């Protein structure tokens, strides 16, 4: 199943935030959306996931989502969005409860995703007992539990410190290597984009347009921090964004 963003535009009142976005998210690839703050990348992601409605254009699904997928478009949020009154296991159970699966099946899925995110020992812990990195791993486990056709990740590592970010990035890479998933990954961190993205889409500042698309051919598992090729791509991306980011920084918020 591919996702296509078809000449999508969006305006809040008479402020255009997104203009004529055309984008294809091919199956099995991670597409990173980068851009200066306020360029509407998170808004675009929410539209792809059906949490917001564009004023013009549409997001379309090409082909059927896999039959076993419980929730084809699944979000991973920046601030984890875990229910603080449910423990790790029950937070994952929450998204399975409405699907009337047999008990054994639910238990199997939970065990499986906890194992894949190395959380098995923490099944009974409450979110308040977990570090930021652990919370995000729970959120990722929860997303995996519904077997998404496409994961929509909204700055999933931005709330974490840089060491945790590096560890979680490695986790994501190994998850993808074992079982490739499709993802749209919004970030403002170019280092993340070049490590995780098969394709990096650079948005321009408001109104957000597709400024450039950069494909990175190096396989994910061969990439590592400080690799010269990645540094070069990152520098190139920064050149594309630099001026825009400067202007965006000087803007009044509701101007």
């Amino acid at each position, binding site marked *: 199943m591919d996702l296509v963003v078809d000449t999508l535009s969006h305006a809040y009142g008479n402020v255009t935030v997104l203009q004529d976005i055309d984008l294809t998210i091919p199956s099995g690839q991670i597409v990173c959306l980068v851009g200066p703050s306020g360029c509407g990348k998170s808004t675009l992601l929410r539209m792809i*996931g*059906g*949490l917001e409605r564009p004023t013009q254009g549409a997001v379309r699904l090409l082909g059927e989502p896999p039959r076993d997928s*419980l*929730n084809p*478009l*699944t*979000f991973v*949020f920046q*601030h984890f*969005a875990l*229910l*603080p*009154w*449910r423990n790790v296991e029950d937070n994952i159970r*929450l*998204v399975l*409860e*409405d699907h009337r699966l047999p008990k054994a099946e639910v238990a199997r899925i939970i065990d499986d995703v906890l194992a894949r995110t190395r959380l098995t020992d923490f099944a009974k812990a*409450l*979110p*308040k007992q977990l570090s930021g990195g652990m919370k995000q791993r729970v959120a990722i486990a*929860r997303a995996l539990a*519904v077997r998404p056709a496409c994961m929509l990740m909204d700055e999933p590592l931005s709330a974490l410190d*840089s060491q945790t970010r*590096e560890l979680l990035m490695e986790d994501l890479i190994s998850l993808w290597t074992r079982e490739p998933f499709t993802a749209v990954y919004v970030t403002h*961190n*170019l*280092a993340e984009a070049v490590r995780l993205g098969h394709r990096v889409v650079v948005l321009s500042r408001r109104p957000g347009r597709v400024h450039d698309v950069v494909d990175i051919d190096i396989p994910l598992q061969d990439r590592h*921090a400080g690799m010269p090729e990645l540094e070069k791509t*990152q520098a190139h991306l920064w050149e594309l964004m630099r001026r825009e980011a400067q202007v965006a920084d000087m803007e009044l918020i509701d101007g």
Partner: protein
Amino acid sequence: MADTPLLAAGTLPPSRPVTPAKGQPVPFRGGGFQPVPIRGVAILVFVLLIAALELGTRTGVISNLTMPPPSAIVETLWNLAASGRLWTHLYPSLTRLVIGAAIGTTLGIAIGTMIGLFSLARAGLVPLVSALFPIPKIALLPLFVIWFGIGESSKYALIAFGTFTPTVVATFGAVDNVDRTLIRMGQSFGLSWWSVVRKIVLPGAFPGILSGLRVSIAIGIILLVAAEMLGAEHGIGAYILEAGSLYDLERLFAGVTVLSVMGVTLSWLIGLLERRFLSWRS
């Protein structure tokens, strides 16, 4: 990592070891503003106050016309309990409070949740609730007697009405304060509307509803006594009124003590609920 240092190395003055004994220590100024629980102080205050009253009334510094000695109040309470008359007054009072508060808070939580969830309910009911909230409910007692009769129903109605408005306000405030990202998360995973309400909105609002309940219960006790003073054969309020009109200070204070203990017990029960169900809060 992408983070580049703002200052190049070497622009900072080199750190020199300073001989320890020289120089002023930096004064500490970060203290206070951090209440810590101290055990035993509450009991000490009680004991001291009661001891002072006892001493004052015995020596005659405090006239027996204004204040009975605490020991006499305890004795009265003891006799009341032993004769079983405490129960004949406490039972109807507790029944009134429980039934009235149950009606009021249940309705209040239901209406408050509706205001929190539906724009139409909010637009229509919030002004109404704001208009009802400041009315001293005791002023409505004569009206309630006309509507519901002099029996139990008018007392239930008064307590229910008095606990209803603060519960509504607390509940819709609590529903408003539920983290919207959690609700969007639920929707993004395809949870049904009812699941979102039951599994995300209501548990998220529960702490706010419980603290509203504390206020409601206190108001309920106040109204209970007021209602019983206006027309009841039994009940703590009736007992206090009777003692007052006979100028029987020991019994009057015994009645007031029962009320105070009742309030403390109910608040302790709510605290117990909070510890049991809200342990997830950090």
